[in-house]
């Protein structure tokens, strides 16, 4: 399994605060990976760097077989290349229907003129129905996204992520604010997605991560503290000191 995404020696400083400190991390395809760590460990900043929102001061971020340098691409180009991101706070377009939200995310041409001329094909429609089924929102397809419950919005966002058909999914706290039943459903969704893609999940909830049953990377002060199975990292004394012990 060769690496799909390879981050090496990345550092970034905000006003003198070193948010990411010589971080190196890699993920293969397919793979499910959980990233944990205390607040301020640099988890979200790491995602910002990969998706092009933040430019690091040094280091390299390399993508795919052709070793594309992600640091030279814009956010939209990075998304088009196959990296999808779900934000910590669910951000769906509340003013628009669930269907429109999904349609916007569907993997189609993204230029203004092609979008202007776009007419949904039978395939597009079927894909939207299929996604809605998968995220349990079939009944709500024509409702405003703003009328959904918090958990449903999280799912819609995951659905939009899947609609993009990315090779790497970066998922920031997908289970925040969900009921136990919803959490279980979310775990299933992510595990299923990870059969064919690379999925990286940031999460605080240990039970959730245990259910994901995957390799875990622990971040601390902007660098990797430990990596391995959940049992392995939870036995690590340093991890217990900085994260679990508190």
């Amino acid at each position, binding site marked *: 399994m060769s690496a799909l995404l390879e981050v090496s020696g990345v550092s970034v400083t905000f006003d003198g605060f070193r948010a990411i400190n010589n971080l190196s991390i890699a993920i293969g395809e397919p793979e499910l990976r959980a990233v944990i760590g205390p607040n301020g460990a640099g988890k979200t900043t790491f995602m910002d760097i990969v*998706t092009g*929102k933040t430019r690091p001061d040094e280091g390299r971020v390399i993508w795919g077989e052709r070793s594309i340098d992600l640091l030279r691409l*814009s*956010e*939209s*180009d990075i*998304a*088009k290349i196959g990296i*999808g*991101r779900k*934000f910590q706070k669910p*951000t769906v*377009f*509340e*003013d*628009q229907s669930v*269907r*429109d939200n999904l*349609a*916007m*995310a569907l993997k189609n041409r*993204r*230029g*203004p003129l092609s*979008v*202007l001329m*776009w*007419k*949904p094909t*039978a395939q*597009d*429609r*079927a894909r*939207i*129905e299929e996604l809605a089924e998968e995220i349990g929102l079939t009944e709500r*397809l*024509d*409702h405003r996204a703003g009328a959904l419950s918090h958990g449903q919005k999280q799912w819609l966002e995951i659905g*939009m992520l899947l609609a*993009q058909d990315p090779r790497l999914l970066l998922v920031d706290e997908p289970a925040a604010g969900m009921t136990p039943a919803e959490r279980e459903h979310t775990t299933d969704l992510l595990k299923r997605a990870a059969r064919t893609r690379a999925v990286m999940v940031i999460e605080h909830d240990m039970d959730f991560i245990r259910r994901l049953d995957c390799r875990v990377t622990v971040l601390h002060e902007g660098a990797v503290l430990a990596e391995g199975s959940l049992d392995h990292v939870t036995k690590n004394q340093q991890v217990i000191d900085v994260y679990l012990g508190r």
Partner: protein
Amino acid sequence: MELPRQTAATTTPLRRSFLRDNPSVLWFMGLLGLFTLIVTLLSEGMGIGLISTNLVKVLGMTLCLCLIAVAMDVVWGYCGILSLGHFAFFGLGGYAIGMWLMYARTEIVIRDSLGRGTIPPTELEVSEGVAAQIFGVVGSSELPLIWSFAGSLPFQLAMVVLVPGLLALVFGWLAFRSRVTGVYLSILTQAMTLALSLYLFQNDTGLRGNNGLSGLQNIPGFLHLPQSILSVWFFWASAFALGAGYLLFAWLVSGKFGSVIRAIRDNETRVRFLGYNVEGYKLFVFTVTAIVSGIAGALYYPQAGIINPAEIAPIASIYLAVWVAIGGRGRLYGAVIGAAGVSLLSSWLTGGGAPNIDLGFYRIVWTDWWLVLLGLGFVAVTLFFPKGIGGLFDYLVRKP
């Protein structure tokens, strides 16, 4: 027996027929057509004369203002760019057509007077005569470079589209690429408008400084026709332009494109992470609306008869935003209601048409109090009807 399998196509499609999805467009077109017919039948030039030529012009001009308001609604209400510069594009369209109107008409006059001599005038004499006639007022008798093709109608018509379009393209490219958004972008557009207006106020810019271009109501080639007929023609042209522009923008905002630009308005960062080039979309919308604004201006000023740099001053663009806000952002008919309502009310109250109110201890003179009324109206609408007047239609038509 085997039941036919339900195919994906039988489920609710994303986009049925455009007009079926947008009944308000049909309503609008119907009402616009009816209004045009009524005004024509009542006009002085073609009908029973109940509506004076002057009023026909005011109504035609109002239709042009509705058109630019619709454009403003697309750029602001749908795409979230509060541009305080669209009246600059409107003015540039007016200047572009005004140059031809003024040049061609002056040329006719000059040829006429020179032709009375025994020797027919040379082209140079004509061109010098025209220049002296047009630019005498700013103390010059030379034709500025930008007037080189002013005698050509096709050229100046192309300028109506190209000048606002290119300015919007270059300005937008610089501003959006640097990710200037929100209030900073508004200030930037306002600065552009102010700079353009101040520039045009100078006498040596080749557009007659603060005198502006005048006599635009006289259309070369139709000088023999009375204004009562011409005014109806321009009214028709304005109504047609408004209808076509409305249709264009309604189509633009109805499908997935509309979905994307509304998403940009609500959360542009998120749209970027979906893989859309946000800057490209903004630039597209900004430029298309600027071009339509230019066309609206090119129809407006021949009816107004005169254009000067004061028309481009930032206050005009601010009024535009106020119309759209009062009418209702994010719905095209709202912009039309706002622009028509407020501008007609304004000309009624400030044109001496409205009776002043004597309170005994104080006399409300509308020419002084109109702006106060507008300001109060604006505050009231934003406080009590954030969706604007157009939002009241939501109570009539319940949406699922």
